[in-house]
């Protein structure tokens, strides 16, 4: 398959995830997350520098990156728990952590902070007491899904059950934006499936924007319709999965001898070349030509993400910010959208 692409067409964001239709802001609402020159430091060096991206409302965003690439830092910045070291990050159009956004953002932090001495019922009471838009039903549903006795002490729960309680707090807020740091990491497969269902239902029915960090790349395309990939202090991918999938081609070349054939420079943006024996496979963004390629295939989202993770020096692909040249005609083929 070969997709002549028009990048501008891909960024009109038509379809069921139209960004303007959710939230209580004015029409043409500000994005769920909007970073301009965003930077924050890790332990020794910048975890992210010069980050420019926007996450439209209503997306389910997979936040991907190697350990220490700033995923957790980005989520804690968005939650208003730590300041940025450079640039700005706006959450639903406001500075993070301000009274204008606090009630509208639900947060699940990596270490699931909960009062260990509280019972589950008391923890829900905390949520009810501190959130004006509290929905007892939404919170209860999670607790019941996870089979947690309400009288149990939080300190005695398993890691997975604690995740459920923390998620119940986040969902009970009835937020417009959910920030989830590895929500499925310590859940058993059964609960993982159930809670994924709850989150997807929430996104579909309320248009809630969900940003979740994850290492489970193979499951990402089942859940997310937008991807944010960070590596080596840069944002490499920030776009709808549909577009990311459509933008890349996996071409294979057969090499007659040991020498690597020269890839035609006009072929497109080469993200990765891999050689196994006589076969050279090349992941290309916006391929202009298929000349000389033995075969062309549409890579899976996982393959694309892995290619970027292995090649963090690659040119970034960020919605609204284009560096790569692309032909001016045609429109992206809608890829097979996974059933949701």
């Amino acid at each position, binding site marked *: 398959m070969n997709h002549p692409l028009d990048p501008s067409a891909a960024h009109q964001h038509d379809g069921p995830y139209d960004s303007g239709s959710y939230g209580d802001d004015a029409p043409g609402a500000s994005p769920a997350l909007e970073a301009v020159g965003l930077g924050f430091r890790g332990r020794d060096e910048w975890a992210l520098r010069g980050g420019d991206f926007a996450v439209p409302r209503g997306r389910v965003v997979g936040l991907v990156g190697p350990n220490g690439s700033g995923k957790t830092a980005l989520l804690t910045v968005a939650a208003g728990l730590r300041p940025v070291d450079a640039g700005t990050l706006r959450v639903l159009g406001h500075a993070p952590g301000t009274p204008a956004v606090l009630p509208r953002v639900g947060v699940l932090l990596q270490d699931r902070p909960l009062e260990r001495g509280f019972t589950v019922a008391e923890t829900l009471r905390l949520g009810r*007491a*501190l959130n004006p838009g509290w929905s007892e039903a939404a919170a209860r549903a999670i607790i019941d899904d996870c089979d947690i006795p309400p009288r149990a002490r939080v300190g005695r729960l398993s890691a997975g059950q604690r995740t459920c309680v923390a998620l119940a707090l986040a969902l009970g807020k009835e937020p417009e934006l959910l920030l989830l740091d590895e929500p499925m990491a310590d859940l058993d497969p059964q609960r993982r499936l159930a809670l994924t269902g709850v989150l997807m239902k929430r996104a579909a029915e309320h248009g809630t924007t969900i940003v979740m960090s994850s290492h489970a790349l193979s499951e990402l395309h089942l859940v997310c319709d937008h991807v944010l990939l960070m590596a080596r202090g840069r944002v490499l991918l920030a776009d709808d999965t549909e577009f990311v999938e459509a933008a890349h081609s996996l071409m294979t070349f057969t090499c007659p001898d040991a020498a690597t054939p020269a890839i035609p420079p006009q072929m497109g943006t080469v993200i990765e070349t891999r050689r196994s024996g006589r076969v050279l496979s090349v992941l290309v963004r916006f391929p202009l030509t298929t000349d000389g390629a033995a075969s062309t295939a549409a890579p899976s989202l996982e393959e694309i993400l892995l290619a970027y993770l292995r090649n963090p020096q690659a040119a970034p692909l960020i919605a609204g910010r284009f560096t790569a040249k692309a032909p001016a005609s045609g429109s992206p083929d809608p890829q097979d959208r996974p059933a949701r």
Partner: protein
Amino acid sequence: MNVRIVIRRLAVGPAAGLAWLAWRQHRVAHWTALALAALAAIWGVWQHGQLVGVVESWATNCPHGRALGAEGPSVCDSTPRAVSTVMTAAAAPLRFLPVAVGALLGAPLFAQTLKDRTHRLVWTQSVSRRQWAAAKLCVTGAVTVVAALLITAPVTWWWSTIRHGRTTTGRLGTAWRDTTPQSDWSYLPYTGPAGIAHLLLALATGAAVGLLMRRVLAAVAVSAAVTLALQTGLEKLRPHLLTPTVRRTDGDAFPDRTLNAWHFDQGYTHADGSLTTTSPCPPSTWEALQRCEHTRHITGTYSRDLDPQQFLPLQWIETGICLTATALLAALCLVHVRRMSAR
């Protein structure tokens, strides 16, 4: 969700919720403080009965006042037990009570939550950090006020009974004056409004130290040290807050002590009006002393005291200082909590 409704509900709604949370998070400490204070109050009231009873029986047993020698029963020669309990034994715990409040109620108030990292649980709900910090300070502050009232009330009762007893006439008045020690106002910070204000200052000190240090044990140690330093500083400052009365005589005898006054010092006056506490003349015959004093231009004696009616003004001034410092420390907490990074 309408933003305006959210804001309006936020203004009223979370106050009760935050108060519940602040109580719930530290309820063991709160109940312990209140229970100990209640026990102390019961003991204090009982001890007041002992005090009055022991002085009254002293008055009947020792009709001739304090017996120095073999004039009366031997009980008249010693300070009654209840008096020394109230005036000496109770003074040490009262002195270290603010240190305990600062270290055990104040220091963990924020430090425990920050150490457990559960502050991020509350900071990601719909309330501002400032509301959260204010609620914690108010709830534990209210617990401290109640506990302080329970402890301070009987102590104030002892103190005022003794002071009142010393001014009464007749045999009972003599008994009070003979059995209770000469006043130096050492109970000023333990009684009345000052007793409560000192404990509130200790609480605010501990809370601020805990918020800045973020570690419980370190905060306990540092806040104990800071509270002790503050108490000592106030103690040193106290004699300089009001102008003492200087009473002078022309003779050789020191002026009579005013009852219940805070006696600073006594000494000799020079012709130019200056004062000295030590006599420049060695003890000698009366004539020699007269001659010596004449050549040294000593014209009489003086005594410097704070009058009994200055007790309450001095107590209110100290209360004001403590409450101002408490307010400043609380404000520091509220300003700092906004700037904290919770990473």
